[in-house]
């Protein structure tokens, strides 16, 4: 029983990380209809950047600089790569983010090499003991930050004026533009938010399991999370993330770690066959 709870806790942590990454993808998809395939690679790049910045500047300044880097990264992608593609089919943008993922991987190898790093950040607090279950404080931090991040974004999205502009843009680009809303500004803001989220996810993943250029392999599971929850559903990101995190953790513990690597993709295939628009996604009806 204790082992079971241990796996659940670990699963919730990875679920939280999946949530942060999936949230980034969902935000971008909702407002721009672009599926950001490179989100996992952005997390890896952000984590590497944090390692370097924290070593140079200290923890607080380093993390702030890392977040600034994430925001700039998102802004740069939007302004330099996505904006020239406006007017082209959406496939082009999807293909571009796929290629961007490869560029990021190349940059990671070029700048940081192929060996692992430890994230030089000590999270405050100590691991707690519930009966026989020992839960590391890093896990609690990760789960907590994922929940807080999710709640903060939900509040921002549903209750603030800027959130309302984002929702209007998500509904229909042309109508939003016609109403005088800053559609391109919303695009940029979405990318900036996704960049921030990727750096936050990179920080906690780095603390728990180190930073390595192959980190994205584990993060591709976030794509399954997005589809499981529904591509345009913000609540789906957290539900899907937690489900997948726990399932994957249980498979690692009770069946085999090799199988656990494939679990996200099996979930992905099943969800595509059974319920392609996800648990909470909007089913789009096509008309001629």
């Amino acid at each position, binding site marked *: 029983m204790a082992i079971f709870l241990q796996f659940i806790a670990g699963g919730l942590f990875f679920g939280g990380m999946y949530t942060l990454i999936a949230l980034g993808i969902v935000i971008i998809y909702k407002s721009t209809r672009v599926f950001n395939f490179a989100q996992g690679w952005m997390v890896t790049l952000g984590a590497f950047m944090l390692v370097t910045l924290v070593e140079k500047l200290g923890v607080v300044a380093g993390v702030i600089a890392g977040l600034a880097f994430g925001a700039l990264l998102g802004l740069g992608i939007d302004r330099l790569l996505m904006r020239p593609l406006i007017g082209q089919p959406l496939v082009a943008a999807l*293909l571009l983010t796929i290629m961007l993922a490869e560029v990021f991987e190349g940059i990671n190898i*070029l700048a940081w090499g192929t060996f692992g790093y430890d994230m030089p950040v000590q999270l405050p607090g100590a691991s707690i003991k519930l009966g026989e279950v020992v839960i590391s404080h890093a896990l609690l931090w990760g789960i907590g930050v994922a929940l807080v991040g999710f709640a903060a974004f939900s509040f921002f999205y549903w209750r603030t004026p800027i959130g309302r502009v984002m929702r209007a843009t998500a509904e229909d680009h042309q109508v939003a533009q016609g109403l005088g809303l800053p559609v391109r500004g919303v695009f940029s803001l979405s990318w900036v938010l996704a960049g921030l989220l990727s750096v936050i996810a990179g920080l906690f993943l780095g603390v728990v399991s180190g930073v390595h250029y192959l980190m994205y392999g584990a993060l591709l599971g976030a794509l399954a999370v997005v589809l499981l929850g529904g591509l345009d559903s913000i609540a789906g990101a957290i539900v899907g993330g937690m489900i997948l995190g726990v399932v994957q953790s249980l498979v690692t513990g009770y069946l085999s770690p090799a199988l656990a690597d494939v679990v996200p993709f099996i979930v992905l295939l099943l969800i595509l066959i059974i319920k392609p628009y996800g648990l909470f996604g909007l089913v789009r009806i*096509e008309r001629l």
Partner: protein
Amino acid sequence: MDRPAGVFDIRYEQDMAVVRTGPQWGLLIGFLILLAVLPLFAGSYFLGFMILTGISLVAVLGLNILTGYAGQISIGHQAFVAVGAYTTAVLMDSFHWNFWATVPLAGIAAAAAGVLFGLPSFRLKMLYLAMSTLAAQFIIIAFFGHAFPDYFHAVSGIRVDRPELAGIDFRNNEAFYYVVTGTAVLMTFVAKNLVRSRLGRAFVAVRDNDLAGEVIGINVARYKLYAFAIGCFYAGIAGALHATYFRSVNPRQFPFEVSIWYLGCLIVGGMGTNVGAVFGVLFLRSIKELVTFVSPILGEMVSPINAPKIGPALGLISWALVVILFLIFEPRGLAHTWEVLKSRFRHWPFKYAI
């Protein structure tokens, strides 16, 4: 379709012909002769380049049918190449089959795998389907890595012998070059004609507007599966050649990056044109070779400690950046540039080209 002045079609066969004029026949035959005599004066390095290009070309032609013509984005094509390679390797290693007998089976096995992972395409399109092929990439490679260790030998890899036919030993690259080039030419010919047929037109209809296609009587789901079967059949053939060229098969030879590289070849060349597939593969393969050549020198110049990692990193960055630039500045790819060039040449000295 532009054609030189004074060439008129008076029979339907002429109108449908791919090669129309005397000079075109001359160029084609000259090119084939050039391909045939290449091993006589090419060095072993260039020969290896040509063999790898040929193998990639077969795979990319398949991807072109699947993604370029039928519009089903696949980001797991290398997994189907792996299915072909493993079919050949296991049949030769464990069951002692003849290589030539395994080649069609490699194609059929890959086609079956393609249809299996293409099944979600009944209800899905675009992005969702791309995710299904992503799942194919990782599930298939993990399957070869962990299932049936007696047959797949995931750790040590399967050893594959090069074939022999009519006294010719294909163990040297000069002879094997003819196998690869012959296959590539044949597959290009088939692809070129396939997309002009009823099947190819149906693919284009599915790609351009699947609902309209359905309305005019195309069974969209069935044609999507045909596209998967044919595209992955090509991948399987490429896999059989891959296995015999490298003489061993292991799961690490089929990474995700290569699947994306195939897609990149297609974008650089121009989606939905066969000549684009050829240009794209040649272009990106050349960039790869250039980087392999330049990066050690660059590494020595910049920082000798980091020299070993510069090669793979620059390799990834360079081709992916090239593809991004093509996406932004020339989405129609090199095939379009080639058309413009031909048109300029035809109309010279007049300026009103395309």
